[in-house]
């Protein structure tokens, strides 16, 4: 098997999901300069709601094709997440619109905890397995395999990214969003009601998050009330990597982060296998002869890569790959 190609495929899959979640962070940041740390948990709510609906439909035993069942889950998750996103903005962030920036930021962390705890009350503490309602055939390409679910996730993500780009650049509401992002006061003078634009931005971000939640849950076959935390942090890292506030940056950052993580996880075992390195393997000759490998770090260290990337970006290019210099925004 071609590990490199396989990890590229896996990385593109998770990277697509990161990109969709990162768009949610970056859109909200673009409009009100808030890191909505609860966004990852909105994604979790999407996965949980979809899971519940899918289980319900499966339980009814209707002769529906699996695709329709998943679609029912997605269609339930989207409005649920939109409602959560709307409520977050209306109840938690809007009253703090003119407060010092630290206040809404800490509120966002609080909202994240609240969403997790509410999810814990509703869905319980145990991880929920996504029901295996369909086969997931794999296709061989060049020594690697790509599954139907992976293809679906990548295609759907590309469609969502294209759709959002079109929305932001070609529709009236999108133009209002960009105008508000550039200067909320001047946009107001043009008759743009900032409250509506900001609420709309949260709703769109949440809808994207809902789809991302279903994709993530389907891919890993599991949903859990804490899943939004790490996923959210990684997507946030992706948004920062691309340049927070920049839509193309979030897409690029998400894909890159997915690739870095997948390749890192694929190769870290090999690179930290002490028996590969002559100097060390001489010292460990006995064990190497016996086991063949003495691996320091396994693929369970994959989360490290996302955050290593975050740290490197913050140190060497805080504005991100595609980000503008901060001074231009002021």
């Amino acid at each position: 098997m071609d590990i490199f190609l396989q990890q590229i495929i896996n990385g593109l899959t998770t990277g697509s999901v990161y990109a969709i979640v990162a768009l949610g962070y970056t859109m909200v940041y673009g409009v009100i300069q808030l890191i909505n740390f609860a966004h990852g948990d909105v994604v979790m709510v999407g996965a949980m709601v979809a899971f519940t609906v899918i289980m319900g439909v499966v339980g009814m035993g209707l002769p529906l094709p699996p695709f329709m069942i998943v679609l029912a889950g997605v269609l339930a998750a989207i409005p649920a997440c939109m409602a959560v996103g709307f409520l977050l903005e209306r109840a938690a962030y809007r009253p703090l619109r003119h407060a010092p920036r630290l206040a809404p930021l800490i509120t966002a962390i609080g909202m994240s905890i609240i969403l997790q705890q509410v999810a814990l009350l509703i869905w319980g503490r145990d991880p929920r397995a996504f029901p295996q309602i369909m086969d997931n055939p794999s296709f061989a390409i060049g020594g690697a395999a790509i599954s139907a679910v992976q293809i679906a996730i990548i295609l759907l993500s590309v469609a969502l990214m294209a759709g959002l780009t079109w929305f932001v650049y070609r529709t009236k509401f999108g133009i209002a969003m960009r105008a508000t992002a550039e200067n909320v006061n001047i946009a107001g003078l043009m008759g743009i009601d900032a409250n509506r634009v900001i609420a709309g931005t949260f709703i769109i971000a949440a809808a994207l998050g809902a789809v991302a939640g279903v994709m993530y849950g389907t891919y890993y076959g599991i949903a859990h009330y804490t899943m939004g935390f790490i996923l959210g942090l990684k997507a946030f890292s992706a948004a920062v990597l691309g340049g927070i506030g920049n839509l193309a940056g979030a897409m690029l950052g998400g894909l890159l982060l997915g690739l870095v993580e997948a390749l890192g996880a694929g190769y870290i075992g090999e690179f930290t296998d002490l028996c590969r390195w002559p100097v060390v393997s001489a010292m460990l000759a006995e064990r190497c002869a016996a086991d063949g490998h003495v691996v320091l770090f396994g693929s369970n260290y994959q989360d490290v890569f996302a955050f290593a990337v975050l740290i490197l970006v913050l140190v060497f290019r805080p504005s991100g790959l595609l980000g503008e210099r901060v001074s231009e925004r002021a």
Partner: protein
Amino acid sequence: MSSSVAVLLEACNVGKSFGGVQALKDVSLTIRANEIYGLIGPNGAGKTTFFNVLTGLYPRDGGEVLFDGRALDLANPYRVAEAGIARTFQNIRLFGSMTALENVMVGRHVRTRAGVFGAILRTPGQRAEEAAVKRRAQELLHYVGIPHRAEALARHLSYGDQRRLEIARALATEPKLLALDEPAAGMNATETAGLRQLIEGLRADGLTVLLIEHDVKLVMGLCDRVAVLDYGEKIAEDVPAVVQKDPKVIEAYLGGSIGG
């Protein structure tokens, strides 16, 4: 003056202070429909502050503004735009990373509905509206004389074109009153002449214009009436010929005679 002339805007005792500095002291002025009204005064007299209060960018400390017979809601800039006041800025404030056309399209917002769901669902009404918005924006670019720059990013336009674009964007909101904050600043003589033509054309098309300007010649030649602010107080308000001879005004401008 005859009382039959319709009043468009009436500011009553508008006040604004920043910390201990009283930037506007009970400023009252009356702008009649379809006139070109000049607001002049030395630097720091409070002209731009008056604009900012009038358009809801600064919260006012006191006073009322009646516009078109109704009290103006100054708490929300978009309400001011809705009521029919549009403005430009002394230091140009365009949406720099958007195209010229898009900048003008933003200005159409106040006269159209902007629903996030309509935009997603692509209702026929929404599409027709967006097409109309684009068409109108193109017309306005034509009107101010920069149709060929429609697809250029606003920040890439020349200085004079940026000023024109700001006016087009303001016009897109279909204002009754257009407030121009030093539109001739930094313009050469040719550009100023073009600007003057543009303003006169706007008035001919039925608009009322409120003009802050340092170019005294332009103000005196163009305006029907002029108010003079000094240290946040209105010290004169009359036709240019009278204001020019007002001793208080001459003193405010450091003894120099104004007008040319």
